């Protein structure tokens, strides 16, 4: 287990990040383009494949968010899917309102589930949800504010390591229970679904789906480059310093809790953005997305791809989810065992993940380092 909290091995090279951003962009554009070819064409790609690819790339955003805090700030988050789901719900609210009078009950101002609960008006937190821009703001602001409050309390009290991990699990679990309640105002068990269109464009048309995939690719590529900007420069060095020797940074005059808070909030917003992109392409968001297992899975994607590399997170999310798609169709009952085994094998034999396989020998020296001192505490002779 110690490996989960110890420094990421050899994580100081970001040459691959721009390349990964280009691969993501090109991949999304090619798939989207191919889906618009006539069905008779041998290069045609089905709508199912397009939305599957969109789902993978949305998950890759979540993985990127996890890698930022786990790989670079050493915060093993086991609750990041909460921020992802909150972003999804924020976008889902807008998509619900877009249904308008086309719902089962034909009420233009109230979503079906509210009529089912005999509500007569929108709760205050649904105000403005008919505006796309307001939804976009909420997608970033809700996860950001929640992460800000949670992080401020946790980091200020110097909660770290396994204790922080447990708190993040509790956070996502509590949200799951809340969202399961019908009275909470987000559709309870069923969540938000049955979406019709986005900005007036039919969500089921091939063109809209192709555009959504391209948008997801662009957002993910930008997120990769922005994350690289955050971790590659002096701030990235500071993050690594806080990760490896937090109390030492205090004696240099830094406030590690503020450093962690900044990257934590940024990461939560990325996860929220991933959730928003997810919901447009998958067509449903429900409380199951808050399930603790989802957050744990996202950590596994990062571990498999290569922690602390950014590109590895994207690669891991796509590879593992492709595996999941294939495996669950083939041997559904064995998927969880397979996933667990994959995690064990990566942790034991591939500490740098898949990225480590074609990583440059340049960082070989990292392996030789004996971390003589991991904490400057307890020096009393």
């Amino acid at each position, binding site marked *: 287990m110690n490996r989960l909290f110890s*420094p990421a091995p050899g*994580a*100081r090279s970001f040459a691959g990040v721009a390349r990964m951003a280009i691969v993501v962009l090109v991949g999304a554009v090619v798939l989207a383009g191919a889906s618009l070819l006539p069905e008779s064409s041998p290069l045609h790609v089905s709508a199912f494949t397009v939305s599957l690819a969109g789902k993978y790339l949305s998950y890759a955003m979540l993985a990127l968010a996890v890698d930022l805090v786990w790989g670079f700030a050493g915060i093993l988050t086991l609750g990041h899917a909460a921020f992802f789901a909150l972003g999804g719900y924020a976008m889902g609210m807008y998509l619900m309102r877009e249904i308008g009078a086309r719902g089962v009950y034909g009420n233009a101002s109230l979503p079906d589930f509210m009529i089912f609960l005999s509500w007569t008006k929108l709760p205050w937190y649904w105000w403005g949800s008919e505006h796309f821009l307001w939804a976009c703001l909420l997608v970033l602001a809700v996860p950001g504010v929640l992460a800000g409050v949670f992080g401020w309390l946790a980091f200020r009290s110097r909660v770290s390591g396994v204790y922080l991990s447990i708190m993040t699990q509790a956070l996502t679990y509590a949200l799951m229970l809340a969202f399961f309640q019908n009275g909470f105002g987000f559709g309870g068990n069923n969540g938000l679904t049955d979406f019709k269109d986005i900005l007036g464009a039919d969500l089921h048309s091939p063109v809209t789906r192709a555009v959504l995939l391209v948008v997801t690719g662009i957002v993910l590529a930008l997120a990769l480059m922005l994350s690289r900007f*955050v971790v590659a*420069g*002096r*701030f990235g*060095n*500071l993050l*690594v*310093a806080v990760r*490896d*020797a937090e*109390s*030492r*940074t*205090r*004696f*240099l*005059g*830094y*406030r590690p809790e*503020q*450093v962690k*808070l*900044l990257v934590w909030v940024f990461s939560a917003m990325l996860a929220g953005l991933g959730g928003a992109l997810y919901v447009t392409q998958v067509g449903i968001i429900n409380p199951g997305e808050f399930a603790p297992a989802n957050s744990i899975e996202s950590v596994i994607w990062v571990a498999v791809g290569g922690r602390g590399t950014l590109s590895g997170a994207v690669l891991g999310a796509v590879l593992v989810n492709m595996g999941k798609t294939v495996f669950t169709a083939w041997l559904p009952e064995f998927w969880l065992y397979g996933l667990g085994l994959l995690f064990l094998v990566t942790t034991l034999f591939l500490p740098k993940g898949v990225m480590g396989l074609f990583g440059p020998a340049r960082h070989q*020296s*990292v392996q*030789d*380092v*004996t*971390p*003589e*001192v991991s904490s*400057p505490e307890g*020096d*009393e*002779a």
Partner: protein
Amino acid sequence: MNTPYLLEMRDVSVTFDGFRAINSLSLTLAAGEMRAIVGPNGAGKTTMMDIITGKTRPDTGSVRFHGHDLTRLDEPAIARMGIGRKFQKPTVFEALSVRENLLLSLSGLRAPFAVLMARLSGQERARVDHLLDMTRLGDFAEHQAGGMSHGQKQWLEIGMLLGQEPELLLVDEPVAGMTDAETMATADLLREINRTRSVVVVEHDMDFVRALGVGVTVLHEGSVLAEGALDTVSADPRVIEVYLGR
């Protein structure tokens, strides 16, 4: 708030689970002074540094730096006031290069967002190069700090301390694990540093303390047992009894 002292500890006591680690300790340091603190294991040397740097809060007593009370401040606030600390075990950021370690230590940017937006200035580059020269680590600037030898890590940490531009340096056992030649070079380095800054050195190595040629304070059971030149102090029968004579 005028005081002739840079650092002034008055009647400081701290207890850990009933054990008096520091027992009404009073100690003063003049600006520009270098002082060696010696004492047997458990005398409270490191705890004293913990109190000055804000890691441990004293139960009673006052600690003043330029007349400002330090006991209410936390570690970053005290560090920013101009007190730098080197730990007993060398504590550098192992995953970063020597140059990156020094750059992070440079006084100036401390707010996270400012660090995020920072670009390396020519002046910063010059400061880092100067520190590399001073600590003789110029050839290793791009090497990973974790791969350096024990002595080099000690020097890197001293370099990081200087990067902070502190008025007062607290240096805990800087020559532990060093060869004789490295020990003497470190004594030279500290004397050089002392030309512009005040220094408190905790050290067991008597040859090193002699090489520093500065005033000595002997701690025993959390308070000052004797103070003065090394020769005077080492002739003191009480000191011989608790420490040197063992």
